Every structure is written in structure tokens, then in C-alpha cells.
């Protein structure tokens, strides 16, 4: 079938250009990568390559033509032997846009030619009954539902059974499932994490609760060298279907050893999946997915969020897939990307910015591995500006990684450098005023948005 070659955009702002020279003529056979023409703008001359192979049926715009609008059909390409005598009329009817790649700017994307790729289906059907629930209740319900569903699921950790969990996430589980499936361990993170990995190798599905993720540093060898790598090292013979969960990040006034965000650490590791929910609905839907996932999942909760209430859908079996970000607020002026408790600052900043006439889009990543790059890119292509917000330290932050990804894949769409709002580059101090200073603030998010919008 004949397809049109469209006038390419060499930058997001290019509206028209000169078709300086054709390097092919009608009837020529071209292969993918062959140079078709030279296009000139006021900034540069670029070679324009064929994407598909075929025969040049008709040249619609003669060389030397100035002011050719972007996306105007400039030639028709067809299969060998195809009759393209009526190509010109076909071109008028065609609506399909065709992506061409320029040689000097192989990664340059055309604004009009990049369709939104992200999965934007709703998390639950419209009209679903909703109920108010704390994050704590949501996590508890998720574990109860999954333990009822699968006998292989069990919970182990410090004080999870008799005491019902240091943060009461496992309230009622011992009564419901008995001591065989809700196991109190000594204070021995390296030991019980290792034991859980061994049980997972044998096909059980342990949920390991760390009283906080700060203590999981004791177990890091088991999490990374054993849980994350074994499926690969064994050539697929066995893996570790399990969840490591517990509160992560700063609580309040507990100082350096109890206040660290490990999101970027775990997100670095191939073989792990990493989840960091903000809302109760996400906590529930994602924890259920985590328990069912055949891989080791790091599930990062937050002590401050445990008691916070959100709307949760009333559904028999509600899960949220990994790798699907949530657009928490739609907007057109700037993209704010965050996850976990960072969303508190992002949302508060967006509301204040709206009062000042800045319409921010807020994306909650929800899972960091896999990460929903498409939703971020789609949004940046719309707003042309991005600010990331996280509680973790600034060196090697999730925001750094996202900035690099956006630079690589949507460079031409950016109207300002991406800014990363992170926690300060210091161990968490104890004094209230210092702690406040070390954490991310809403004002810092607003300031970053002001910078990227040149306000």
C-alpha cells in the first residue's frame, strides 16, 4: 500500500522549512536508512532518511520549495510494482502520520508524530462504590485477602504475631491464620530474611515484615545476592516469589538511623520490583499484586501515611498492576513527578500553584521498578517542564534517573532544565528545626516549579 512521506519537524518549534534537494527520483527503490532529501531550516540543514523500504512513487513537492509546512506530504512511497498514478489524490485522503528520522538528529521526535503510549485505563470501573480507609487498614486487608486466597502465603517478622505488628499492620492476622502462617521471629533481620528466601526457593510466598527498612540493611545480602539474583544465576530454575515490606523513610524526630528513604537503593537492582504507594487504594491494590508477583518485591510503606485516610473502591478482588503511574492531578503547565510521601508535597504545591494560575500535572509513579516512563514522557511532551519530588538523598536519586530518561527521549520537548527536589544531603538530624530543614518542603516544590516555568 502506498504511504506518504511527510515533511519532518527537525525541532518541536519548527513549523516550516525548505526542501533543499531530493536525493532520490521517482521510480527509485529505497531501503530503510537511505537518505531521501535535504531539509533546510533557518538553523540547520539536515539529511532526511527513509524509514521503510519501497519505491518512490511520486514526488509531491519539488526541490527548492520554500515554506513547506511540517507534516505536509512531500512524496509517496509504495511497494514494487504498485500503481501510484493516483497517488496525489490518495495523499489527500490519507490521515495516517508517518514518522521519519533525520540523520543528524536520530532521537529528535516530532510533536505531532508521537502518540500517547501510556496505559490510562481507570484503576476501577466508573461508579464503583467507595469507602474511606486508612493506609494501615488497606495494607492489613490486602494481606488478609491474599492469605485467604493462597495457602502458600505467610507472614514473618519481629512482633508481627502476638503483638500484632509494631505499627499494627498485622492486626488480627494471628487469630485468623494461626502461628504457622504468622510467625514471630527474634530480632534477626539477616537470619529471617535468609530463611524467607529459602522458603520462597521452595515455592512458598513469604511476606517479610521489617519493623522498618532501616533494619533491612542487616539483610541486604539476602535481599540482593540471594533473592534478586537467583532466578538469573540459576538460568530460570528457581526464583524468590516474596515480598519484603515495612515502613521506609523519615517518621518524626527519630534521627538518622531511623529516618532513611531506600527507594533509589532498591530501584537500582535488576531482579527486584519496587513499590512505594501513597494512597490507601494504591497500598491495597499494589500489595495484593506484590504478593501474587513471582519475583521478590520491595514494598516501601511510610509510618506517617499509615494513619492517613483515602477513598478505596469496594471490590471483591482489587489489584493495581505494576508499572502504571497514576495521574493524581491533570494540568498543562508543568509536570510534577513523585511517589510515596513525596506526593503530599507535590499535591500541596500543585494546589497552591493553581491559586497563582499555574496548572500543574501531578504524576504518582506508584512503582519504581518497573517504572512507567510513558506516562511521564506523555506528560512532559504536553507541559514541556518537569520537577521531581522525593524524600531521598539527591545523589543518585530517582529524579536524577528520570531526568536522564526525559533528556534522552524528549529532549526537544523540554523548555527548561528538569529540577529534582530531594531531601538534603545529610543524615537526618534530631532537632525539630534541623529536621524540618533536612526534609523536602512544599515551598521547595513551588520554588522549583517557578524556576522551570521562568516565573
Amino acid at each position, binding site marked *: 500500500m502506498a504511504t506518504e512521506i511527510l515533511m519532518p519537524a527537525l525541532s518541536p518549534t519548527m513549523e516550516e522549512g525548505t526542501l533543499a534537494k531530493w536525493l532520490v527520483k521517482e521510480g527509485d527503490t529505497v531501503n530503510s536508512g537511505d537518505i531521501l532529501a535535504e531539509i533546510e531550516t533557518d538553523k540547520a540543514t539536515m539529511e532526511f532518511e527513509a524509514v521503510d523500504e519501497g519505491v518512490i512513487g511520486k514526488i509531491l513537492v519539488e526541490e527548492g520549495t520554500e515554506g513547506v509546512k511540517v507534516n505536509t506530504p512531500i512524496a509517496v512511497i509504495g511497494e514494487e510494482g504498485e500503481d501510484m498514478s493516483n497517488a496525489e489524490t490518495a495523499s489527500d485522503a490519507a490521515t495516517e502520520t508517518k514518522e521519519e528520522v533525520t540523520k543528524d538528529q536520530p532521537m529528535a521526535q516530532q510533536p505531532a508524530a508521537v502518540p500517547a503510549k501510556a496505559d490510562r485505563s481507570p484503576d476501577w470501573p466508573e461508579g464503583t462504590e467507595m469507602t474511606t480507609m486508612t493506609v494501615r487498614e488497606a495494607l492489613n486487608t490486602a494481606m488478609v485477602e491474599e492469605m485467604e486466597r493462597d495457602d502458600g502465603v505467610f507472614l514473618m517478622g519481629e512482633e508481627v504475631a502476638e503483638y500484632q505488628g509494631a505499627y499494627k499492620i498485622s492486626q488480627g492476622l494471628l487469630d485468623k491464620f494461626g502461628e504457622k502462617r504468622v510467625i514471630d521471629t527474634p530480632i534477626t533481620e539477616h537470619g529471617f530474611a535468609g530463611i524467607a528466601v529459602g522458603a520462597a526457593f521452595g515455592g*512458598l510466598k513469604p511476606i517479610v515484615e521489617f519493623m522498618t527498612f532501616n533494619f533491612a540493611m542487616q539483610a541486604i545480602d539476602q535481599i540482593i545476592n540471594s533473592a534478586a539474583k537467583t532466578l538469573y544465576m*540459576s538460568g530460570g530454575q*528457581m526464583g524468590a516469589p516474596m515480598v519484603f515490606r515495612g515502613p521506609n523513610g523519615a517518621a518524626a524526630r527519630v534521627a538518622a538511623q531511623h529516618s532513611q528513604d531506600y527507594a533509589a537503593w532498591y530501584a537500582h537492582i535488576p*531482579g527486584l520490583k519496587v513499590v512505594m504507594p501513597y494512597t490507601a487504594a494504591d497500598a491495597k491494590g499494589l500489595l495484593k499484586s506484590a504478593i501474587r508477583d513471582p519475583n521478590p518485591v520491595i514494598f516501601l510503606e511510610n509510618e506517617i501515611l499509615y494513619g492517613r485516610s483515602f477513598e478505596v473502591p469496594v471490590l471483591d478482588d482489587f489489584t493495581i498492576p505494576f508499572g502504571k503511574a497514576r495521574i493524581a492531578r491533570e494540568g498543562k503547565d508543568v509536570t510534577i513527578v513523585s511517589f510515596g510521601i513525596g506526593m503530599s508535597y507535590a499535591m500541596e504545591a500543585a494546589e497552591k500553584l493553581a491559586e497563582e494560575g499555574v496548572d500543574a500535572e501531578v504524576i504518582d509513579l506508584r512503582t519504581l521498578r518497573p517504572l512507567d516512563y510513558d506516562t511521564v514522557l506523555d506528560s512532559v511532551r504536553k507541559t514541556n517542564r518537569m520537577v521531581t519530588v522525593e524524600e531521598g538523598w539527591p545523589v543518585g536519586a530517582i529524579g536524577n534517573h528520570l531526568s536522564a530518561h526525559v533528556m534522552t527521549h524528549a529532549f526537544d520537548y523540554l523548555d527548561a532544565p528538569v529540577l529534582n527536589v530531594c531531601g538534603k544531603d545529610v543524615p537526618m538530624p534530631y532537632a525539630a528545626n534541623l529536621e524540618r530543614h533536612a526534609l523536602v518542603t512544599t515551598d521547595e516544590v513551588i520554588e522549583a516549579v517557578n524556576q522551570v516555568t521562568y516565573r
Partner: protein
Amino acid sequence: MAKAKTNTEDYLRMYRQMVRIRTFEDNANQLYLSAKMPGLTHMYSGEEAVAVGICEALTDDDRITSTHRGHGHCVAKGAEFKEMFCELLGKEEGYCRGKGGSMHIADQSHGNLGANAIVGGSMGIATGSALRSKMLGHDDVTVCFFGDGATAQGLLYEVMNMAALWNLPVIYACENNGYSEYTKTEEIAAGSITARAEAFGIEAFKIDGQDVLAVNELTQKLVARCRKGEGPFFIELETYRYHGHHVGDINREYYRSKDEEKDWKENRDPIIRFRGWLVEQGIASEEEIEAMNAEIEKDATEAVAYAEAAKYPDVSEVDMHVYAD
């Protein structure tokens, strides 16, 4: 020598398995020395009676975890030469499709949960495997192999504590070959190794790890008791590593004498001892044993040739098995 398995077939199988390990290691060493094998490998030669005495007391349902010095455990638990040499050479037909190598061979089909090359790293896994057995009401037993060097890792004490609290069917098998890497064991281990297990209320045994029948007899008893819910147990097996810490550790005189090596090789070799016993008891003749040795040598030569000619994994496999679907 102590008596354990009682029929001729069992004795010959134990001999055969020990010779297979020695032959495998001799060939692996040769591959390394001739620069055909990359990386790093740790020879099990000298310690054969430990792996074979223990694994011959296990079934395919029983599990083991292994170490960086793991070829012996792997062979003893039933692995094939061909897939093992392929793995050593990084070939697609290796047990781990060439992605694990010498230090990470796993063989699920025979209950080998894999070699963990972090010293002491598999102690949690073995104990967790035993927890699984108990939770599911199965009667399989897990043996955790580790060296004397690994007794310095805290994980051992964390998991022995829980194994004892929960009566798990796990046997901790400490292969004490006298050296923690390049350092004498007495310089890294204070007090008694078995006493450490006893501190948790775990029954512990110290045994001659060069006597395959003694190792097998003790293990059979302990496995039977584990199956009845009387675990865990701890065994310290006195043994010796003929090669250096790894294949590149050639000049060893600064940490151990040639006389010492010679003494172990000539006077305490587990294969020579068992062979002598087999002949003395009339279980096999010298000719039959020589024929068996020759057959194993031939198997190994053929497996090496096969592995050398086998193909490498397709590059598309580089990101296969990072995640399970």
C-alpha cells in the same frame, strides 16, 4: 572403617561418586590451567568423602545448599558431567544456561538449591528450605554445606537460633578443611566450633571427614531423626583441601607446608582409603576398580570435549530470567 550402607552396589556407588568428583576437578583444573576456563574456581579435591558420605544418605527430595567450593556437592547430589562442564565453560546447555558458572551451579532436579558464593550466604536459604518442609508437613531434610571460614559469619548463629527454636529438619555440615582462605582455622575460630551449635541446644558431632562410611553412617542416623522432627543437627567434618583456596593459589608454602599436604594426600586420602577397604573386603578387585576409574575418566574426557564444542547462549539471553513472568 565404620559400616553404613551394607550392599555392594551402595559401596561401589560411593566409591564411584568420589572418583567422579576427583576426576571432575582434575579436568576442571586442567581447563583452567590451559586457559580454556575463565574466571575463578575452587577445587573440592580431598574433601570427597564429605559430600558423598552425606549426599548418599539423602534422596532427590532432600535439599542441599552449596558453596563457592561446590562442584563436589553438585556431583554427589546427582548432577551430570556434561551439563556441569558446559556451565563451567559458560555454554547454553549448562545447568544455569551459562549464567551461573563455577560458583553458582544449581540443579533443582536433584534438590541442589545452588551454590552461594557469598561465604555463609546459603545458611538462611537452607534453614528456610527446612522451614518450608515443616510448614508443608513434608519429611524432606535440608543439608547446609559450609566451610570453617563461614563459621565467622553472624548469619550462622542467627539461623541456628531459629532452627533450634522451631525444630527444623536441617543439618549444618561444616567442612573444616583447616584453612579459611589462606589462614589457619585456629587463627580465625576461637574456642570450639561444635560448642557454638551446642550453645543453641543443637546436638553436634565432630567426625573424620576422610572416612566416607563414617560420614554416611552418621548422616543416615541424623537424617532419619530429622524426618521424625528431632532436628536440627550440626556436624563438623575434619577434611583437607588439596589445592589452594582457588586454582590460582599455587604457591602455598607461606601458609602451609608441602609436608603437610603430602601427609594428607598419602596417608588420609578418602579415595585411597576406601579403595583399600573395598579390595580388602572382597567387594571389588583391583581390576574392577581400575576399570571403573577408566570409565569415569572417559566420561569426563567426553563431557569436556562436548562442552568445548557446545554453543554459547544466544546474546538475546542476556536479559532472560531477570524476572519471572
